[in-house]
Structures are given as C-alpha cells and as structure tokens.
C-alpha cells in the first residue's frame, strides 16, 4: 500500500506532514496492549470491586433508578443495525433509526402531554440547562426563578450554563417538602424569563404543578419549565395538562441501565411555539420519490451544522441508542401497563413511608403524596446509619445533605422504591434501618 501512495515508509508519511517540533518522538507511556481474554479478566476484576444493585438490596435513587429493564431492550440495542450507525445523515439507509426517533418523539409527546419533542438530548440536568438557553433565545430575559425542589445536579448544571449564556438565578425554598407557593409567586415578575421546578421534586414529593404554573403565569410571562420523572407520568397530571411550556427530564428510568450514572438520555418536549428553537435532532415525516412514507432529520436550520453560531444549541451527538431503549421499554410497558406500574409504585412507596415512620425517631419529611421515592428524617447522623445498614446488607438510600449541602436537609434519607423492591424487601429495609437507628441513638445517648 505504501508503494501505491508513493512513500517508502509510514514514517515518511507522517514526517512529511507533522513538523519536527511537534512530533512525539517516543512511545506513549501506556501499558502494553493485551489480548481479548486478558482485557476481559482485567475489566472483570474492576467490576468485582464494585457492589452492584444486583448483589445488594439497594434503595438508592436520587435521579437514577433500578427499574427492571426487559430483555428485549438489550437484544434490540445490541443489534449492529442500531448499535453501530452514525447519526442518520443519509435517510435512505437510516429509516430504522429515523422511524425509532419519530416513534420516540410520539411517545414523549404522549407522556408529557405536549405537542413537540426532539429526538433526545444528553441527560436530565443538562436538558434543564438547555431549556433555559431556549427560553433566553425565546424572550431574551435573563432572570430565572428556580424551585429548590430541583435535583441539586440540575440546579448546579443550570448555574454553570446560565453563567455562560448570561442569566441570573433566584432560588425559591420549600415548604412542607414542596415549593413554597407564596415565595414562588413573589419571586416571579415581568423580568422573569423562565421558571423551573421538578415534578415529583428531588425529595420525592409531588408538587401541585398546575398551581405553580398558574402562579408563574400570573406574575409575568415566563417560560414554565418542568423537570419530570417519566415513570410517574402515566398517573401524574401531565405537564401539558398543567400548562407547562417545556418539559424535560432524565430518561434513565425508561430502559436505562444504572451504568454508574450514564449514558442515559434526556428528553425535551415543548409547546408548538418553541418548535423552531428546540435543541437537538428532530425526525419528521415525509415521502420519497415514489411516494412512500419515510422519515428524515428535519428543521435542521436550528442546528449547529447549518446555522453555526446562530444555532439554537451546540448539540450534535445525542443519545439515540438510549432513546431507543426508552421507546422499547415504553412499548413493552404499554398503555395500561404503565398505569399499573405507577399504581404499584405509589402503593409500595406509601407502604415504605409507613413502615419507616414506625421506627422510633424516624419521621416523614412532608405530608405530600410520593410515588416512588420518599424522604424521611432520621434522629441521628445519616452517614452512621447508612454505614450500619450497608454492613447489614441493605443500602437504605441516599444521604440527602451530602448531595444538596443544605443545612435544613440534615438527617434526611431519600429512599427509592422500584418494582424490583418487594414488600419483603421493604420490610428488610425497615428492620435494618430500625436496628441501625437504635444503635446510633444508643451511641449518641
């Protein structure tokens, strides 16, 4: 091949192009390569140094959840035809991927009750931050009012982005576990470009989303942005029904692995008027030269490769495969199934709330409804209690304050209940937590 190129060595090819001053001139200081078997063994050893949700009875949640992902999701996502293509730049040979995007958009529209959806963004928190950018492009205002009920990662990501595109953030606190309605109403004014809240919020509490939007729209004309948990949307009043303008969220509960936090997908849906300012790919329907129905990436004039610095977002590679997983999971759950699942989670979370609050000294954080996650207040150091539970084989959930850093969150434990956690598992949790609390109380006394 070198002869065909007209050089006598590969080195020549590089030397002809890379100036001497910037040649590396030595081997990279990396370990030698290994055969497949050795790499497998090495990665397996690393995996064994982690404790997975498959080995430990775990109630961790706070943004990522151990839902049961049906086998067909893996099977479909592993198909070369879905796994290995690039973004569908040649629609004639990408109808599979494009139709999946179209179906996914349909599903997200149905879930959120909003008329338009893109084909996925990176993940939840950055989706929220991107919604802020879209709001800024929409009305040019740079005052954002945010509920403290947002996931702390969302809040921080929004701050990072907002510092970039120039927006100031006003935080509204909670009352009995949900956004303080009075403070919320007061904070929102005519200068407010967008308002943000989470449903259910980070603490698991169901907000009165409709009221939040009404109050927001009463105080000005902000873009109302909700970060929603998709698994709850079959039973919870939908963003569309609540008057929300933009609904975003973390898609991991739909077909996603835990994967130590990623990759998953973010979803992004909005009212019609935002269509041409949406970030990301959008698949649209059309016909081919012979009149066959087909799908293409559409409204690309929003996008970076066409509009460059005037693009509505910089996103390019998104999360198509994860969105496929989400779509397949949704089809598998089905119309009635997803409602049944919602009711199951609601019932089990209620049971967990009751069982945990039977423990001496443990109380519920709020009186609000909760669907698959609940925050309880412990009478002693959360870290110590957690350590004891974990030693007993039960990971009781997330230490809230460690994540939020808020003083008022001291003692809060966030417990996630998925369909994989049976009544028996919840009883085991109650027992372990009870024992741990008693021990810690004993130590304190």
């Amino acid at each position, binding site marked *: *091949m070198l002869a*065909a190129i007209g050089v006598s060595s590969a080195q020549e090819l590089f030397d002809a*192009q890379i*100036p001497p001053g910037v040649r590396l001139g030595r*081997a*990279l200081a*990396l370990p030698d*390569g290994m055969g497949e078997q050795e*790499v497998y063994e090495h990665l397996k*050893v690393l*995996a064994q*140094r982690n404790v*997975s949700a498959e080995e430990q009875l775990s109630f961790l949640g*706070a943004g*990522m959840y*151990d839902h049961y992902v049906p086998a067909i999701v893996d*099977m*479909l996502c592993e198909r070369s*035809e879905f796994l*290995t293509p*690039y973004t569908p730049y040649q629609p*004639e040979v990408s109808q599979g991927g494009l139709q*999946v995007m179209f179906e996914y958009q349909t599903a997200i529209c149905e879930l959120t009750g909003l008329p338009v959806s893109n084909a996925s963004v*990176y993940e939840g*928190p*950055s989706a929220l931050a991107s919604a802020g950018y879209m709001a800024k492009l929409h009305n040019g205002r740079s005052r954002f009012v945010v509920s403290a009920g947002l996931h702390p*990662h969302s809040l*921080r990501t929004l701050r990072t982005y907002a510092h970039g595109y120039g927006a100031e953030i006003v935080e509204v606190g909670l009352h009995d576990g949900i956004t303080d309605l009075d403070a919320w109403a007061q904070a929102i004014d005519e200068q407010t470009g967008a308002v943000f809240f989470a449903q259910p919020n980070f603490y698991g509490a*169901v907000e009165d989303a409709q009221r939040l939007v009404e109050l927001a729209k009463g105080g000005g004309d902000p873009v109302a942005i909700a970060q929603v948990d998709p698994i709850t949307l079959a*039973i*919870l009043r939908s963003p569309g029904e609540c008057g929300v303008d933009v609904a975003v969220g973390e898609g991991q509960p739909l077909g996603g692995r835990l*994967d*130590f*936090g*990623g*990759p998953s997908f973010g979803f992004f849906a909005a009212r019609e008027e935002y*269509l041409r300012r949406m970030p990301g*790919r959008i698949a649209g*329907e059309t*016909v081919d030269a012979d009149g066959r*129905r087909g799908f*293409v990436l*559409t409204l690309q004039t929003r996008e970076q490769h066409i*509009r460059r*610095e*005037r*693009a509505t977002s*910089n*996103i390019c*590679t998104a999360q*198509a495969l*994860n969105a496929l997983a989400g779509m397949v999971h949704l*089809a*598998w*759950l*089905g119309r*009635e199934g*997803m409602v*049944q699942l919602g*009711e199951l989670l609601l019932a089990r979370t209620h049971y967990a709330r009751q069982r945990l609050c039977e423990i001496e000294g443990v109380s519920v954080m709020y009186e609000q409804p909760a669907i698959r996650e609940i925050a309880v207040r412990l009478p002693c150091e959360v870290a110590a209690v957690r350590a004891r539970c974990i030693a007993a084989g039960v990971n009781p959930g997330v230490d809230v304050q460690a994540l939020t850093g808020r003083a008022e969150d001291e003692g809060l434990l966030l417990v996630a209940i998925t369909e994989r956690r049976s009544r028996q598992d919840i009883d085991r949790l109650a027992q372990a937590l009870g024992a741990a609390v008693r021990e810690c109380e004993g130590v304190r006394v």
Partner: protein
Amino acid sequence: MSAPSVGETPQQRERAVTIFQKGAPGRSAFVCPEIDVPRVDPLVLLPVHLRREQPARLPQVSEPEIVRHYVRLSKRNFDLDSGFYPLGSCTMKHNPRLHERVAALDGHSRLHPLQDAGQSQGAMRLMWNLQQSLAEISGLPHVCLQPSAGSHGELAGVLLTRAYHEDRGQQRLKVLTPDTSHGTNPATVSMAGLEVVKLATDAAGGIDLDDLRAKADETVACLMLTNPNTLGIFDPNIAQIAEIVHGAGAILYYDGANLNAIMGFSRPGDMGFDIVHFNLHKSFTQPHGGGGPGSGPIAVSDRMEPYLPVPVIQERPPRNGDGQPFLELSEDRPKSIGRLRGFHGNYGCFVRAYAYIRSLGADGLRDASEAAVINANYLLARLRQLGVEQHLPLAYGQLCMHEFVLSGAPMKRELQIKTLDLAKRLLDHGFHPPTVYFPLLVEEALMIEPTETETRETLDEFAQAIADILAEAKQDPEIARTAPHTTPVRRLDEVAAAKRPVIRQQM
C-alpha cells in the same frame, strides 16, 4: 399489499407503519407485579387533582409484535458491522464486541452512581486509569471525564477559558475559529455567551497566519482548532499559531474529533494547546448508536486546572486494606466552572474506551493512527490511479492525514451530477457515502475517512465504485441523479418535511 413487482425490493414494498399504528386494545407485553402491600385507596395516595386526565396513548402491543417491529426496522438501517462507512470527521472504526461484554458486567452496568465510594473503587479506578491514559495521549495532565459528547466538551472548554480570563479580571469575549471548523465550535461559543470571529484558511489548507495575527488581540479569549483540521491537513504552522495565540494572552483549544490521525505521533499538549476534548465515540470506538451516546472528556494544562468542572476524582491514602490508594469524587473546587450534567459522566462509554486503550496499548494506538493515515492515503492514491481526480480533485495538498476532502465541483460541471447524487448512487453500491458538503469552504465537498479497521480490499472496491459511478454518469447522469434505486426508500423530500413538520404519529 399488492403483488410484489420484480422491480421493487421486498423492503421497498413494505410501507412504514409505526408501533402506534399496530397492536390492539388489550394487548400487552408487561405483566405488572402484584400489589403485595396493604391496599389503600389510590385516590387517597394521589388525589384526583394531581392525576392525569388524558391517558398517555402508548402502544398496545404484545412482545412478539414489539420484537418483530423493531427487528424489521433495524433492517432498514445501514450499519458499520455490515459495510464500509467512510463518513469523514466521524471515525467510523470497528466497534469490538468485547467492549459491549465488559460494559454489561453487573459490576459496571448495574452500579448506582451514588454507590458509596468504598463499594465503587473498581469504577473509580477505571475512571482514574482512563484519565491518566487520556492525559498521556493528549500531553495535557488534568482530565475531567464528565462531558457527554464532543460538543459538551467544547462547552466545558469555552466556559473554562471564560473562567480563566475572568479570574484574571479580563473580559475577553471573542473566540477565533477557522472557517473549516465544525459547526459545534461556533454554536458552542454562542451558548457560552461569547462571540465568534472567523479565521481564513490559507492556500495550503492551514490557518491564514496573517489573518490570525490581525485578529489575535487582547479581546480574544481563545482559538478553537482541530489539527489535523477537517480538510485532513496537519497545520504546518502549528507552532507559530500557538505562539501568536499565547502571545495575545489567549487560550488554545483543541477539538479532538480528529485525534485518530495522531495518537502516539503528536500530542495537542506538545503543540501548545491548553484544552482538548476527546470524542470517545470516535477515536476510542464507543459505538455511535445511530446518534449517541457519546462521551467528550477534556484534558487541560496546569493553568486551566483550577477551573475544571466538578466532580473530579482524587486519590487518598489506602483505606480498604488492599494497599491501593482510595479514590473519591470531590466537588470541593472553589474556582470550578461547576457541574455540566448529573453524576460523573457517561461511565458506560468510559468502560469501552478504557477496554480499547488497554487492548491496544501504546503501540497499538500508534499502529491505529498509522494505519488510519495509510488507509486514507492509499484510498486517495487509488482514486488517482483510477483517474477519479479529474472530476473529483483533492481540495488541498497532496497527502493527507486520516481523512481527505475532494471537491465535486468539476464533476458537477462536467458530468452534471452533484456530490449529493454521487453519494446517493454509492448507496446502490452498498457503501455508506462520505460526509458531504462539509467543510463549507470546499465546493461540493466529499470528506472521506476510511479508518484503520478497513481492509485494502474494501478500499479498492470503494474506489472502483466511485470510478464506476463517474463512468456511468458520463453515459447517463440521470441514473445517479435519481439514485438511490435499491434502498428501502428512495430519495426523500426533505424540503416538504421542514415546510409542514409532522414530527409525531397522528392518532
């Protein structure tokens, strides 16, 4: 369904029907676990004013229907495992299945991101090792794995330069990008609240140094560059460029999408770059998934380090009794630009990229870049041999790095077929076309990146296909102009799609 005609392929006969148009009431795949806790009135648990009014009209389908629907759909995709995919700037290299196997191990795939540090040391170690490897490959010592894709890494990088200058009390609002740059670069600049200033390309395909000198002043925050650039050309003036940019007090940002050309040969850090983003889904073979997931870690120089996003992994004294340093995620970084997303990044992609780096090792990575550059130059030479150059000349230079850009302008003039027609006709030959109409400064551009994992036989066949299409166009350009003919659908009307957008299934 009408009787199959001989002219129509089986897939063409099949009309697109979405999953929402299939199924029937009562059908479902999911069997919900029983409610095993004491029954409480659901309306007490969630009052009616918080409940959904209109049900979400999700599909009502059985599992066999779902499987058949999506398996059939999958067959309407072209994929890398089935054919050559020389999409320029995308590095469509083979995706080893070992990576899927290891990423699926419970200890990786079923690990919760908030699992206690003591119970996730394997994951932290993997991330740490990956960071060290990326630092060595790029020549920049500090790595943050968090960004979700290349463009996200760019955002991190541009925010870092802002933070850097702000920390020095400077308001630098301009970002220089060459006109060959990828669209994500200028788009990112705007998202970060800065302003794009375009740089011209010189006759050799590199940055026009005069233009750079004229624009590099104290209002400039940074220069964003990929090297080799999107023409496949390694900028011979890279040292001067760095000097000029640094001389103006600005930062040099490296768009790492083209890293596959230089691994083990040259390092952005050594060229003078302060920040680089990696595309693990390009150079490090995370499968593209039809449009993601990706992962876009960044590596930076010492002076940029204080501003890195949180969290970062830190080494602490051994704790588990295994003598190994204990690794922890820390958010305690006062000058950090903050978080860019939830949790720690796309760990699943880290596993694959790490497996790739360990499989290849130092020599293997260098061999990969070497083979990528040889393959690109061989394909270029082969096209020349076949006389393709006449209609499709190389846009700049004589050699190339891992990819090259042809101009379809002569072809359009002389053979009356456009680059788009050539691309569509390639589909009939069973090849995925190259990237087309990018970079923008090349007329009728055709950007070809074969990657190192293709065989010579494949390159020969591809070159021959291009030659054949040109020869065919000489006889009858209409064939290419109406191509593709054998794909599941024929040329699609993109204008109509955008004019009256239908972006979800009507029900």
